[in-house]
């Protein structure tokens, strides 16, 4: 998996969100996006997964132009902004609904993923009754359940306790070891640098700095 952004800019209703972003991301790696709220991290993630298209520039995934050669990356899992699931369904049923589209994960894999994020797959509680932390855990499970090549996680440690943050770290390292390219947005610099192999610092929609992290 290789993602290339060439001079990508994005504006929405005359507001410039991203300006002249060029970068190259290769698997397996954890790439961190650092920046304050409103700096453009989430918009960059939406661009990477094909939900929005650039106003200028190009996004290529494995050489294919996003929005022209293909609408979305071939294998992607994402948790962007907030975990979105069906309110009346349990965690397991929600993941069943998601995995029914591509059919890449069976029930055993769903249950295993739910356990990995620290939830109980047999819990019949509907999603609407989940705590914020539980919703976040299920969101992470949804992003990794089908073992995609590209994983996009926006503020994955939101609402998580210390154990939860540790779980996220372990899971993302496992996914990298499997060969995935992980793009992680986080405003907390210590968590981000602890997890990432390289970090892009975004300020006002521009890449201000790019550095490798020594672990």
């Amino acid at each position, binding site marked *: 998996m290789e993602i290339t952004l060439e001079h990508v800019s994005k504006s*929405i209703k005359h507001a410039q969100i991203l300006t002249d972003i060029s970068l190259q991301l290769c698997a397996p790696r954890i790439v961190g996006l650092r920046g304050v709220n409103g700096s453009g991290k989430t918009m960059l993630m*939406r661009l990477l*997964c*094909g*939900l*929005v*298209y650039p106003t200028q520039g190009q996004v290529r995934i494995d050489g294919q132009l996003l929005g022209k050669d*293909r*609408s*979305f990356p*071939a294998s*992607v899992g*994402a948790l962007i*902004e907030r975990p*979105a*699931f*069906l309110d*009346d369904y349990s965690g397991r049923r*929600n993941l069943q*609904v*998601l995995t*029914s*589209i*591509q059919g890449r994960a069976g029930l055993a894999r769903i249950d295993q993923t739910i356990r990995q994020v620290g939830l109980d797959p047999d819990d019949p509680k509907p999603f609407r009754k989940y705590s914020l932390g539980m919703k976040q855990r299920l969101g992470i499970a*949804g992003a990794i359940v*089908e073992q995609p090549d590209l994983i996009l996680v926006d503020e994955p440690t939101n609402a998580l306790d210390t154990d939860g943050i540790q779980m996220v770290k372990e899971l993302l390292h496992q996914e990298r070891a499997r060969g995935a390219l992980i793009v992680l947005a986080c405003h907390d610099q210590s968590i981000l640098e602890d997890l990432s192999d390289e970090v892009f610092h975004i300020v006002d929609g521009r890449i201000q700095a790019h550095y490798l992290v020594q672990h």
Partner: protein
Amino acid sequence: MYCKFLWFDVRQGLLRCWKKLLAACAVMLCLLLLHCLLIYTHNTTLPPSEAALSFTTGDLLASVLCGIPPYDPVAQQPFLFPAIWLLFFLLLLYQVLLYPMENLNGIGQTMLMLSKSRRVWWLSKCSWCALYVLVYFALFYALAALLTLAAGGEVTLALSSYYPSLWEVRNELQPPPWDTLPFFLLAPCIACALALAQATATLWMRPIFAFFASCLYWLASSYFLSPLLLGNYAMMQRIQTMVSDGLPCLSGLVSAALLCVCCLALGCWRSARMDILTFDY
């Protein structure tokens, strides 16, 4: 992929929305009961020598779908606001308004990404919309039939011979018997086409604005007699099978089909280019 998406939409936007349909049934029942009340009131004031009126399922359906006669502003006639007719259709349009965008704000966004096809997403939403319209009309027709049975009337789409005398007909009625079946088949087709047009509009504007545009369009349909305003075809009092200078059902069907095709194509074009963000209502 399309079938998986459609099944998801049927479950989430139709089967799990039974409360919305139940509310629609309650409104439909009230509208149908208005006609029963009219006949009942008429019968109670009859002299003993005259036979009491009964009604058919066709009469009941027509009492909601009859609309108003063509309006001529020059002739200084009063404009009869088609409240019942508008309520019936606008309720349907409101019920199909929010689901596609609500879905795209939630789990639908992830599903769209996983499906890898914006076109499939749009085709599924259009199919869901058409299905919802069909279910809405099926419930309406079934309710009318049940009510006719309960009142001891005749379950037939034919109109009672007295029925058009209840209308304020300003043009020449066709001689009976009136063939009502084409109209009762056309009305859901027109509603379906205009519901798709509304759904297509939500790809450009907020759903609530698309609904306002729909309201204006339907109101304009009642004000102006024009084949370009498809709402005219959904008014029994403006159809050729009922009135001599009415609109032919066939042209209504062709127009509805053309509009559906245009909406499908426009929606495919737009959905392939639009940014999928968190939507405002």
